[in-house]
């Protein structure tokens, strides 16, 4: 009988840390970690020494002091007596506003341009190429200041709307005014408003939520949910009988009718802008700085998105289209059932990284005086308090959180549409 014995245990020697591949990777990692920690310790030590020398220990106390500057575009209530923290919050909201608006328009423009670039129309194709190359090859900062200059120089000042025979006039039966201070559009008002919910009392981060808005959103979501139920029922009927009942008026109805009733109950009406004093009063004021930034970021990013869309569509082989039409699918169904789902898989990851770029580029707001978080926290607050370290680090942290959230969405999407291959 033979017994299977373990191979003789090797005595551990120190040199095995280097020569034995089993241990070597561990050694390298420990060295790397120690090196990194030494570097970090060195940096922190230097910082501490320098700050002590400058007499400015890290202190976030300035956040609770009054900011004492005004911000023109504010989504929440704010005045110069509010704290620096609140100013930063207002700035953050402004960043998010321009980022969301920018991403939406950039996508629309980008998709249209991308499709038009593939157009058989010679002049349209060329024009789109000129557009894409023009925007891709000139720095976005230049575009921002350029578009700002165009807005300021070409649109009329509010004073041009004044007098017996004004040089400029409002559009759409006096409801919209394009001026070089921005665009004034009507705003929805509620005569029987449900009021606001005040959250967080008087704290710096307090904010009000409009009950009206919540009600409208709830009704809208409910309507869409019911409409989806109707659609699924229609799908079932179609699958069992082959005939699809006509449901579009029903589906539209369950969304629109409750919404209309709610709006009527709230007494919705529009407040129109009117020239009063130095400026237009009333209505919603989209400031020049917002429009310039929004337009420049959308146009610039759209040029990149157009290329992504074009590449995505061209990446789908012609065989797919041909096979689909051989199955007897109609043209629009080929697009929606065969081409788009495949093209989207190619398009979406770079598209989202463009959204990321757009959000980061929105920090250039500072060039046109749009008060985003770089303009408040990283601008005036940093300037007035002299707390560079705290402000810059916090600023980076905020952007990092925004970026990582977008990345997380991207990864989640990528996982969900990944081709399940071997």
């Amino acid at each position: 009988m033979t017994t299977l014995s373990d191979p003789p245990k090797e005595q551990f020697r120190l040199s095995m840390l280097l020569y034995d591949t089993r241990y070597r990777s561990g050694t390298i990692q420990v060295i790397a970690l120690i090196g990194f920690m030494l570097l970090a310790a060195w940096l922190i030590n230097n910082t501490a020494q320098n700050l002590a020398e400058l007499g400015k220990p890290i202190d976030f106390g300035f956040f609770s002091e009054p900011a004492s500057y005004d911000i023109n575009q504010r989504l929440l209530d704010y005045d110069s007596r509010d704290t620096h923290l609140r100013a930063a919050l207002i700035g953050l909201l402004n960043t998010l506003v321009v980022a969301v608006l920018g991403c939406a328009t950039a996508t629309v423009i980008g998709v249209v341009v991308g499709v038009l670039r593939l157009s058989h129309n010679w002049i349209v194709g060329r024009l789109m190429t000129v557009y894409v190359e023009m925007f891709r090859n000139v720095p976005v900062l230049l575009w921002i200041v350029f578009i700002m200059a165009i807005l300021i120089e070409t649109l009329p000042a509010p004073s041009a709307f004044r007098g017996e025979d004004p040089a400029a006039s409002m559009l759409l039966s006096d409801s919209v005014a394009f001026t070089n201070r921005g665009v004034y559009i009507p705003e929805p008002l509620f005569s029987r408003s449900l009021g606001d919910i005040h959250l967080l009392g008087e704290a710096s981060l307090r904010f009000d939520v409009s009950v009206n808005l919540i009600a409208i959103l709830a009704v809208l979501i409910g309507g869409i949910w019911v409409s989806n139920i109707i659609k699924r029922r229609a799908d079932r009927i179609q699958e069992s009988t082959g005939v699809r009942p006509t449901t579009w008026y029903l589906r539209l109805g369950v969304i629109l009718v409750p919404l209309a009733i709610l709006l009527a109950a709230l007494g919705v009406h529009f407040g129109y802008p009117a020239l009063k004093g130095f400026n237009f009063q009333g209505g919603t004021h989209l400031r020049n700085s917002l429009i310039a930034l929004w337009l420049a970021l959308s146009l610039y990013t759209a040029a990149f998105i157009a290329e992504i869309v074009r590449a995505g569509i061209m990446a789908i082989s012609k065989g797919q289209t041909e096979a689909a039409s051989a199955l007897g699918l109609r043209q629009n169904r080929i697009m929606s059932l065969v081409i788009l789902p495949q093209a989207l898989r190619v398009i979406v990851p770079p598209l989202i990284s463009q959204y990321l770029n757009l959000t980061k580029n929105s920090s250039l707001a500072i060039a046109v005086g749009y008060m985003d978080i770089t303009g408040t926290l990283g601008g005036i607050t940093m300037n007035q308090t002299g707390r560079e370290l705290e402000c810059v680090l916090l600023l980076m942290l905020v952007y990092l959180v925004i970026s990582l959230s977008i990345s997380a969405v991207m990864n989640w999407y990528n996982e969900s549409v990944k081709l399940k291959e071997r």
Partner: protein
Amino acid sequence: MSDVSFVRTEMLPEKAPPPTSAGAIGWARENLFSGWFNTLLTLASLVVVYYVLSAIVPWILSPTFSGTSLGQCREMLAAAGQESGHGGGACWGVIRERWIQLMFGFYPSELYWRPIAAFVLLAVALAPILFSDKVPAKLIWFSAAYPFIFPWLLWGGAVWGPISAAAGFVIAFVVYRIVSQSMSDLIGLVGGILVALIWWLVLSGIAVSALDSILPIGLEPVESRKFGGFMLSITIGIVAIACSLPLGIVMALGRQSDLMIVKYLCVGFIEFIRGVPLITLLFVASTLLNIFMPPGTNFDIILRVLIMVTLFATAYMAEVIRGGLAALPKGQYEGADSLGLDYWQAQRLIIMPQALKISIPGIVSTFIGVFKDTTLVSIIGLLDPLGLSNAIRADANWNGIVWELYGFIALLFFVFCFGMSRYSMYLERKLQTGHR
């Protein structure tokens, strides 16, 4: 009953296509007016083109090239019968007077040959990499020496500085060869790096001052504050890309590596840098970097900006190279393993040459991106073209100028970036070695 059947024995001559589907008309019908929608698009496009051109062309064709101030330009325009004011005509005098400044900033005018030479030599140094089939292979030695020539030409100073910096690399390599033959590769690597660090930190300073006192050869030093205009943009772009390439390779390999700690360190670095806007990194350069350094150290601002832009480019470069690594078929890795190559040999001989080749278009587009982003330095007060345009507008003569400067700067950026992107497309076609 006749039994005549007709069989044609020769082909009919081809008929000319109807005039509406041939020549210019046919082309137009096919490409511009095929259907109501296309016709509408065409007409709309033509209207847009007309409006844009009719607004811009008269403005550009403005006889103000010799103007010496905005006021004089306005007089010249009035004399020429054009409306003065912003819509009337450009004031090109400002470009004539300031274009050299927009190009070179405040670099001493008698030394303009140095940046020019640096950028021309850059083309020579890049040739062996980009046109390997057309230039002698020996030129690669020049490419290796170029990273030391470039800063010396731009900043000047004693010739011994760059030579001693280069010597550090040579020493490190020699040590590595000797040690790795007698002991192990890893010890060789660590030893080489250590010796090089000792050389740079301690010995080379002494050596340089000694050599300089014996044999003072050198160029007149130029402080980096004198850098400005496009020269500054290009310098930042080139230095950032050149330094970020090796760092990016290391980061990409680290990110792909099996070593968990190394991997997370690299991922953390890359995601952090990619997650924050460049402008915040430039704020770090302008306000914080000195605080992070030992008390008393004081870099000048351009060097600080170079460091931060390099870190920024490194993260993007790492992702580009990671893409190149991922695009390599798995067989290449397995093939290298089956030949018995170790990790570094496989990287050096099999993986990197192919991955880098695939990544070249990505590297070029990263370069274009970094080059465009250099305009951001104007926000922290450096005088790049955009920053200079503000300084020029602060001159009493040119106060009130807007479009001319922006237009000129945009045109230069466009020419440069467009050229680069076309070149990268050409490379992409050339490098396709038929893997699909």
